[in-house]
């Protein structure tokens, strides 16, 4: 990357959508409304596992104001899903979790819709349910999907009964590795189901037009994927389905896949009216796409001087009644279990397991916090046992530039050592136990920048402003501001000159979606490609105007300059519109595949981390020895972001990601009892408030990626990964108590200390 002075990218410029958001004029899907719109609501199962004996919708249909009541009988018999097609719009024949949709209603008012729900009668015959991982994996366990073998699935998945995927990494010879080890450590960890907690509920408005096209306004992160899924479900060509994202109030992975769009579309088709469906807090906490709870078993062999020679790990994901993201998450998990460490012998497995609970999905760094909690907790246990400083143990094993990852990928731009050293210094690591009941904890990890393609259209307007047309949705990360900064930099205009149109499957180019920390990376690169496409034509036009050679032209300060002459982009755009259709361009980007050793993986949907990021977190905390309450004094993150496209918003991602991570670490869990969620409200699902969050000190480390725009790497997901382990290690340092279950509540600490004497 040539060093040159940057004017726009790399600067902490204000995001372009801030004014609309601070004035309340920005419209989110939950705000969107059409005249004459009906209210849609979903009727849900009250049983964890049961045969539907009878479903009676007649009384509901007859109520005043009710315009439609639909169920499985009214929709095509289709099984949909990602790599594994096991989901149906409504339960047919049997229900598999409390909260599963069984029917839906559309009515003129909210009250009429509620009355309709109350008037639906379902008679169930309960079946034996499997309510946790142990039950689901027991020999002879009831099958959540008896017909699992008949489901369409990508061939790479290893499925068997209640296991809907087993992904595996094998490197070297694990038995020999353990023989070489001087000490072997075996531990078990458990993590809870947690919700993304976006403040805007999932919402969709659907309306059909006379040409048989349905437009769906939704807060999905993946409009093109939703378009395809709706096409499958509605049995309508994708070209007849338009998905538009007006605005999203937080996604974090929970708004990737169809949530309510299909209900809105079916009800709109049935009634001939626009229909809006919006979820309640209760529906979010019982029937959304939360992060899977897990059990992790780790067996690690080390030499006496702290080199890891063998690691065997298994992580089971309780993925609920439908596979959702389970199979993919189980794959990614194996890379997190390996950790950013050089380990010659590995046998790592991830399992996605069906249970009769809500089907789980993707939540910011899926598998990250769960697997990292186990790995990084065990690292500290090992350090302690060997009498080594936990920082030193890590430094002896971490990957460095040019090393191999667990699946054989060659790692470059490895900023991990710098992250660890800087985080440790910032927390004052040399004084690890500054006082009684006070301690510091460290954790590190690595993560990916997800691939997938992005396309953009770019247009220069006759006034010199620039239109950026992208299929990506802005979920709040400011990724599109980052991409616009890249575009502005390349065109030598200001960020304020760029206006962005986004996320409309009809009129914007394809984008793989706002997921996997990929948006600024991929859309930014697509913008660079668009400018590369446009520049020759701009220079040709300018050359003709200026009487110079095209080769002599360059862009500077909103002009083309050559041989001491210049002409503005605005003038060129105007000219081009008059004589040549305008200055418009397209750009597409897909990251080159990352080479890895296919012999090392099985059932693996995600065998390498692309443009990987590296990160280290450190926390300084105190524990109230009697109540177990944790007070966080200081929290530090050092993250290798490759290149900081916009430092302020990257800090924002880190601060917010840590908040979510600390929620998972200390207070959040969706609690099931007998197959039912018992804390399905925001009173008892405990997300951190202003008073629970410490300040987060961010250190941006930059080891430029070979692929990302200006060397950037994905930044959004990683901050969610290390907090649980950092906290667990801090608590252990402060109290001597090792908590291996998430969340690490005050109760667990207090009772743990009591029981330990």
């Amino acid at each position, binding site marked *: 990357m040539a060093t040159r002075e940057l004017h726009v990218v790399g600067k902490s410029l204000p995001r372009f959508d801030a004014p609309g958001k601070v004035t309340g004029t920005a419209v989110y899907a939950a705000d969107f409304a059409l005249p004459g719109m009906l209210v849609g609501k979903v009727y849900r199962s009250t049983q964890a596992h049961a045969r539907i004996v009878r479903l009676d919708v007649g009384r509901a249909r007859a109520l005043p104001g009710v315009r439609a009541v639909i169920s499985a009988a009214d929709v095509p018999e289709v099984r949909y899903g990602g790599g594994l097609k096991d989901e149906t719009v409504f339960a047919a024949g049997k229900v598999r979790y409390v909260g599963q949709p069984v029917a839906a209603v559309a009515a003129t008012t909210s*009250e009429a819709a509620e009355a309709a729900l109350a008037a639906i009668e379902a008679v169930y015959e309960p079946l034996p349910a499997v309510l946790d991982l142990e039950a689901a994996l027991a020999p002879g366990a009831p099958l959540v999907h008896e017909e699992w073998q008949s489901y369409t699935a990508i061939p790479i998945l290893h499925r068997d009964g209640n296991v809907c995927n087993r992904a595996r990494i094998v490197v070297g010879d694990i038995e020999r590795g353990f023989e070489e080890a001087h000490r072997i450590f075996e531990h078990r960890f458990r993590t809870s189901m947690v919700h993304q907690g976006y403040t805007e509920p999932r919402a969709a408005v659907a309306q059909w037009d006379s040409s048989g096209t349905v437009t769906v306004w939704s807060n999905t992160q993946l409009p093109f994927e939703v378009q395809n899924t709706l096409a499958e479900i509605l049995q309508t060509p994708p070209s007849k389905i338009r998905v538009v994202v007006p605005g999203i109030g937080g996604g974090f992975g929970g708004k990737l896949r169809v949530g309510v769009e299909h209900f809105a579309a079916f009800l709109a088709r049935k009634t001939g009216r626009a229909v809006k469906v919006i979820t309640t807090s209760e529906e979010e906490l019982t029937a959304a796409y939360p992060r899977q709870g897990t059990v992790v078993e780790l067996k690690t062999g080390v030499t006496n001087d702290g080199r890891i020679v063998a690691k065997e790990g298994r992580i089971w994901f309780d993925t609920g009644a439908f596979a959702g993201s389970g199979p993919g998450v189980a794959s990614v998990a194996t890379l997190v279990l390996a950790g950013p460490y050089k380990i010659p012998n590995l046998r790592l497995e991830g399992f996605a397991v069906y249970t009769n609970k809500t089907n789980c999905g993707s939540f910011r760094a899926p598998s990250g916090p769960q697997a990292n909690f186990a790995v990084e907790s065990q690292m500290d246990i090992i350090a302690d046992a060997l009498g080594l400083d936990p920082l030193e143990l890590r430094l002896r094993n971490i990957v460095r530039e040019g090393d191999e990852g667990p699946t054989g990928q060659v790692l470059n731009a490895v900023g991990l050592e710098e992250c660890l050293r800087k985080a440790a210094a910032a927390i004052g690591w040399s004084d690890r136990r500054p006082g009684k009941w006070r301690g510091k904890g460290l954790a590190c990890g690595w993560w990916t920048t997800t691939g997938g393609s992005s396309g953009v259209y770019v247009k220069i307007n006759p006034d010199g402003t620039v239109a950026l047309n992208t299929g990506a949705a802005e979920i709040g990360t400011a990724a599109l501001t980052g991409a616009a900064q890249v575009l502005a930099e390349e065109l030598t205009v200001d960020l304020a000159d760029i206006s962005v149109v986004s996320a409309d499957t009809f009129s914007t180019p394809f984008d793989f979606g706002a997921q996997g920390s990929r948006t600024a990376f991929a859309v930014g690169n697509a913008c660079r490609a668009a400018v590369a496409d446009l520049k020759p034509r701009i220079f040709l036009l300018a050359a003709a105007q200026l009487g110079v050679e095209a080769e002599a032209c360059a862009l500077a300060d909103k002009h083309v300059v050559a041989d001491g002459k210049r002409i503005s982009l605005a003038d060129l755009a105007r000219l081009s519109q008059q004589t040549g259709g305008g200055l418009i361009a397209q750009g597409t980007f897909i990251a080159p595949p990352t080479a890895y050793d296919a012999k090392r993986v099985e059932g693996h949907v995600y065998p390498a981390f692309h443009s990987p990021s590296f990160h280290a977190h450190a926390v300084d905390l105190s524990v109230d020895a009697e109540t177990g309450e944790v007070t966080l004094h200081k929290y530090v993150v050092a993250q290798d972001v490759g290149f900081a496209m916009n430092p302020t918003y990257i800090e924002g991602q880190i601060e917010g990601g840590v908040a979510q991570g600390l929620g998972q670490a200390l207070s959040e869990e969706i609690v099931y009892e007998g197959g039912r969620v018992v804390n399905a409200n925001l009173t008892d699902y405990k997300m*951190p408030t*202003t008073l629970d969050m410490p300040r987060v000190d961010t250190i941006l480390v930059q080891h430029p990626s070979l692929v990302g725009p200006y060397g950037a790497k994905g930044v959004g997901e990683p901050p969610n990964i290390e907090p649980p382990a950092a906290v667990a290690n801090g608590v252990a340092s402060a109290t001597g108590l090792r908590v291996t279950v998430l969340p690490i509540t005050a109760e667990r600490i207090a009772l743990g200390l009591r029981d330990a004497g």
Partner: protein
Amino acid sequence: MSFQYHEPVSLAEAVDLGARFGADGRFLAGGTDLIIQMRRGKVAPRHVLSLHRMPDLDAIEVNGSVRLGALVTHRAIERCESFQGRLRGLVEGAEVVGGHQIRNVGTVGGNIVNASPAADVVPVLLALDAAVTCVGAGGERTMALEEFLVDPGRTARRPGELLTAVRFAVPEGPAATAFLKAGRRRAMEISVVCVAARLTLDATGERCVDARIALGAVAPTTWRAREAERLLEGRALTPETLREAGRAAAAGCRPIGDVRASARYRRLLVETLVPRALARCVERIREGAR
């Protein structure tokens, strides 16, 4: 959630409407409990009587004793200058109720009538031997707050009766109050356990003359730890004595286990927080609280 709405503008009108509708009517103060319960379908009154236009029910009167009108908000209690001294526990209880939006509208009367065993201000009122006044068709009656609280969500209020005020004497001599709350997060929390303490010491400041310990979320109603109180009276207050009181309170309460905490942890919290609340009272008395 459908009802007929009324806005009485005088006590007489409120009492009249209350009598007319009886159990079919509910008085609406801040709405922080009632509206939510109505939305969840837990209660469905046919008549809602909003009190926000009632004059005089939001007054705080302090003159040897304190009279809080039923519509005094938690915010008003938080900010009342007179409560900074011996009544500081009252402020500590009020300032942790929900978030500031809740405290702006939530009232002490509404809080009492809602009768959550986990209420925050109620334990302090109990520790101050508060009495409540209700007005109904049959006239006015006053009873001890302790008697008024019957069960979770149930009080001795008769259908149609309006709780108008709560009264307590300002503790005299070397006295102080304190309030502590435990929860899973630091705001917007329903207490896992809360403790209110009131102590009066003798002139030397060494011995306890009078003690009140009231606990939230460890019994069907806010609960007085009488055995712990008795244990303290007449004794010198050493850290060990305070811990003894904590153990007695923990042994005597009847917490349940629920999604917020196990019974065992609640007892542990009682054992820990009672001595801390008492110690804080001692500290405050020694610092010369007014």
